């Protein structure tokens, strides 16, 4: 599974899956910490909808970690103060880069988590729809 999709699943999930998947790699391989979790900024570039031009809205605090497994460096980046999750994401990223066999078996778990994430978001959105306005035109 490609990085964009899997990082979206792992970050939107509550962190349990990242913890579980990274643990299987820590137990079986040497994971060398290249960059311990550190805080930094990401400048956010946005497109405004009036003239469709680009501008910077501001920065967001991130936690970043880097881990090396089998000569492959993995990066974990996540919004907020998330030391553990950043490191777990870096391990998972390195595992995919090194094409470790475990990653093949992760696909089903990731897809299941993706379905759950979508279900939870769709439920949350449906709940918000209780605040949807139903206009009635009055006779005057």
């Amino acid at each position: 599974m490609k990085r964009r999709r899997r990082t979206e699943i792992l970050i939107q999930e509550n962190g349990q899956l990242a913890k579980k998947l990274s643990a299987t790699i820590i137990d079986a391989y040497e994971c060398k910490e290249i960059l311990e979790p550190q805080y930094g900024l990401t400048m956010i570039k946005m497109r405004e909808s009036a003239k469709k031009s680009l501008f910077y809205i501001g920065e967001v605090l991130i936690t970043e970690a880097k881990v090396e497994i089998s000569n492959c460096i993995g990066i974990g980046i996540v919004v907020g103060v998330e030391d553990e999750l950043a490191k777990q994401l870096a391990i998972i990223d390195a595992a995919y880069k090194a094409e470790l066999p475990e990653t093949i078996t992760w696909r089903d778990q990731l897809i299941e988590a993706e379905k759950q994430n979508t279900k939870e978001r769709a439920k949350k959105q449906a709940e918000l729809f209780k605040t949807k306005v139903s206009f009635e035109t009055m006779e005057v």
Partner: protein
Amino acid sequence: MGYVPVKGGTEAIDASIKRLKYERLKGNETIEIQTIMSTMRGMIDQVMSESSLYSPFLAALAIKQAEGSMEEAVFLMRAHRSTLPRPYYSKTVEPETMLVERRISASFKDIPGGQLLGATYDYTHRLLDFDLINESSESIQRWLQNYQTELQQVDAFDEVKYFPKVVDYLRDEGLFENHQEDNTVPKDITKQSLQFPSTRSERLQVMTRGQTGAVTSLGYASLRGYGQVHPTVGEVRVGAVPIYVGHPNEMEQNTEDEFYIGEITVTEVESFVPTQVKNANNEYELQFEIGYGICYGQNETKAIAMSILDQCLEHPESNFPTHDEEFVLLHIDSVESTGFISHLKLPHYVTFQSKLDSVRQVKKEVQEVEN
């Protein structure tokens, strides 16, 4: 009289800082960062927006340290931000990717997808709720349980819905100009100081991090007559937008290989502003333009005011002060304005003595002439 340089006050300053800590602690109470994050949503959003640093955790810490002073909290956040590395720039965040929590239009009753009130103070009675004085953990738990039970009855959608922009329908009808995507690399005012005339990207960046009160006041001034923009709010949205970054080292940059790093909540506004333009026959006709406003968190008043000022600054030909980019952009930053005003209370002994000397000299000369 010569000028006398002085030093001292170190002990007094130490004692003053200790006294400041005492003022924060003397009630023998503390507030947890988590409590601030859970209960001071509006304040956190405002601090993040004005400091231009999205981090509810750091904003809560700043609020605690500053004892709730907005200007101090924003100053702390800006100072902290300057100590951090900035290893990444995000990929372009497209407004349509917002997971909407609130969406209203003042221009149309029936907007595709409907009007979603979400969480808002707009329809509350502004009466103090004295029941909150004795609010207990048990009563909170009870209320939450009842609300959760109520929500359990709601059937989930099959998939997450993304709302189209109201303005896009009007563009499709030809009522608004349909701009092509402009991918000019934006300027960054944190890297390069503002020069005039400014670019649109610089103006938007300054305004989105402007002090809420200042942005609101200038927007209001424009409406009251010190400007020429009288908009109707086309759409106000509050929701979360996803953030993606590219890999720092990989040569081949593929969308599928980007990192999703999380999401941020923003308020986004499009205001519709009627303007008169000359057509091909050199006749004036009515047209609509869009004022754009956006800020971190849920801060609708600021975003609406920004959309007014955006439109004002797109028309510098007007003589009103709210159309003057230097007047607007150089006076709305929290750290700059509060910093300059508050520096006035710092020692100005030398400059003031100089002024006194001048006055004494003039008075002495006048007295000599009179004698």
